[in-house]
């Protein structure tokens, strides 16, 4: 049963010895949770690798419908947001509340930019008739390509590639949105002066989450946009 007591101005649950004990336990828990996240995406990566081996031409053809420039911009945006997230933690440790809040706000904005770019990418695909799997409208896509003077689709099962594309980038996008929510929550708490140098566990935890989300994108970008 846990009740809590205050040590050095921090609530410490009674089953922990001190502030550090509580912090390091929480951090370990978050890392374990990250392991589960990585393994979950790992399943997708394994499936991707298997099908890539089975249908290399089809995957190459699929990648040509993605604009690597947009993906690259998104990669830069996310890497930058990782930096600002790290800064947020750093300023929390230094008790510089205002700077911490700004860093967190910039992180949310970057995540927002990422999602807006993704939105345009998705809607453009839908416009062309590209949907995941069996819903891919081959006729619409070929008409579109013919009008644009580009070569028609060669692989009849192109939908499978976009099955992967939408599942992988969609699940990642969902994580980005969850991250945006969490960081916004941190931003408000920071403004209210909730965190101090000896208590910033949520910032640290969300920070770890955010870095993992970025890391996954750094794998997704070459796999989806560049490998072909």
């Amino acid at each position: 049963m846990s009740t809590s007591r205050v040590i050095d101005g921090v609530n410490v649950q009674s089953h922990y010895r001190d502030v550090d004990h509580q912090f390091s336990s929480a951090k370990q828990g978050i890392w374990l949770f990250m392991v589960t996240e990585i393994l979950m995406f790992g399943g997708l990566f394994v499936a991707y690798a298997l099908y890539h081996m089975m249908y290399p031409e089809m995957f190459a053809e699929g990648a040509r419908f993605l604009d690597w420039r947009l993906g690259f911009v998104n990669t830069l945006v996310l890497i930058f947001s990782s930096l600002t997230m790290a800064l947020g933690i750093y300023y929390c440790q230094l008790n510089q509340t205002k700077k911490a809040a700004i860093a967190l706000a910039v992180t949310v904005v970057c995540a927002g930019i990422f999602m807006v770019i993704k939105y345009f990418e998705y809607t453009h695909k839908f416009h062309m008739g590209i949907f995941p799997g069996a819903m891919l409208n081959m006729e619409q896509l070929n008409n579109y390509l013919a009008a644009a003077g580009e070569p028609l689709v060669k692989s009849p099962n192109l939908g499978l590639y976009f099955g992967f594309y939408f599942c992988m980038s969609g699940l990642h996008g969902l994580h980005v949105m969850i991250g945006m929510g969490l960081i916004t929550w941190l931003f408000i708490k920071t403004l209210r002066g909730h965190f101090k140098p000896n208590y910033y566990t949520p910032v640290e935890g969300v920070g770890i989450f955010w870095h993992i989300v970025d890391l996954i994108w750094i794998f997704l970008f070459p796999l989806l946009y560049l490998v072909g």
Partner: protein
Amino acid sequence: MAHAGHDVDYIHAEKGLKSWLLTLDHKRIGILYFVTVMFFFLCGGIAALLLRGELFSYNAQANVGEILKNGDIYNQVMTYHGAIMVFMVIIPGIPAILGNFFLPLMIGAKDVAFPKLNLLSWYCLMAGAALAILTMFTGRVDTGWTFYTPYSIQTGTAVSMMVVAAFIMGMSSILTGLNFIVTVHKLRAPGMTMHRMPLFVWALYSTAIIQVLATPVLAITLLLLMMERVLGVGIFDPKLGGDPVLFQHFFWFYSHPAVYIMILPAMGIISELITTYSKKVIFGYTAIAYSSLGIAAVSFFVWGHHMYVSGQSELAGTVFSFLTMLVGVPTAIKMFNWVATMYKGSIEFRSPMLYAMGFLFLFAIGGVTGIMLATLAVDVHFHDTYFVVAHFHYVMVGGTLMAIMGGFFHWFPKMFGKMYNEAGARWSFVFIFVGFNVTFFPQFILGGMGMPRRYFDYIAAYQPLNRISTVGSWLILTGFLIGLYVIIQGLRKGAKAPPNPWGSTTLEWQTASPPIVHNFDHEPVVTAGPYEYK
């Protein structure tokens, strides 16, 4: 909460339903799990009885001896029996009930590392279970608990919802595992080194590692299956060049380790029971502890033994068979060590010890038939027959359920502060043990004769053994009803339990029965191993 005095036991610390539903006390959360898992067990059990009732007679096609109306209904009941028993009873069973209650007590901690997460985990199980039960009214599910594609993509039943339910319950399992790992790493009492931890804690620790590492793969598999149904992404759909067998690989990558999520904690309980009722130090502590970790590690590399005839390559089948044989070794070590612990002991035949001995008996049979199934050529014949059904019931019911019952009676005085009726508990053991063998032993023979599993109807030659099996299921029912009666009677009228009625040496017995809110008056300081019977 802060008002709860130091000497008040956890049951009487607070009153009212709300104090239970919002509790952060690991002991109370354990009780919450206990009540709900019992309810699920009842549901799964009724489904099992219906299935056995239907199989009492052959020729259901001509409406002879009909209990379930048709193949569809049979398939649905079969699915719910499997899904409920696996996801809602056996997986949460030991870790979430007994683990939650006793893990902190056994390592001398005041609680698990993350009490709020612990409660959240219970609510996840509840939410998942609610969704799963809701599917019974929105089209039901008929895929079997394994959700094999492409059948699960094509069937018109509520598969998507069931898959979401299993996903949420998986979340619950991950949270429990994560919590236990950090608890073991961070919250051991002074002097409680890893090698002084009771073997139940070692087993829970190994289980937790599997829960955290394997469940995410199930999560993504189920998500993809749902995407397949909703969006038709094509990854498991042969029409787009997808591979339905890949689903099986993914599914068993989780579900084989999950088998060890079910059995490892049971093995932990058996270690506790045998030392206590033999009044003797465990034989080969280190070997038992590390064999748990060994099983956990190897369990990730054997999934393909579920797929010898699925169309995977001969090489894959061979490698998986070889690795599966390796899992047999740590299991054999444990069996021998338990028997060796009884040597020169002082063995008391209390009902928990009877259950432990029942476990050894049934698990020995479950184990050797497991080796038969791991053998390539033999498995080709037995795969997907009643031989497999008999084997995993011997392991899961004969193993895990016997351990749950034994562990439950062992710790009953500690959990509720009351004694139960010993004679009643023994009778419940006798009925369950005998009934179990009557039900499932004939199924080995049926499998040998070639009766495939998941059959709503069968050919005439299989009827006699099926009848014996069905009669056995009624004996098991009787055993559990007696057990239920013993529990209720013990709760209502049981004599007050002393702190340590069995003379056990582990930490949970060194505090009051039932334990006080903060578990111990003073933080215990550990100076010796867990089983120092002198």
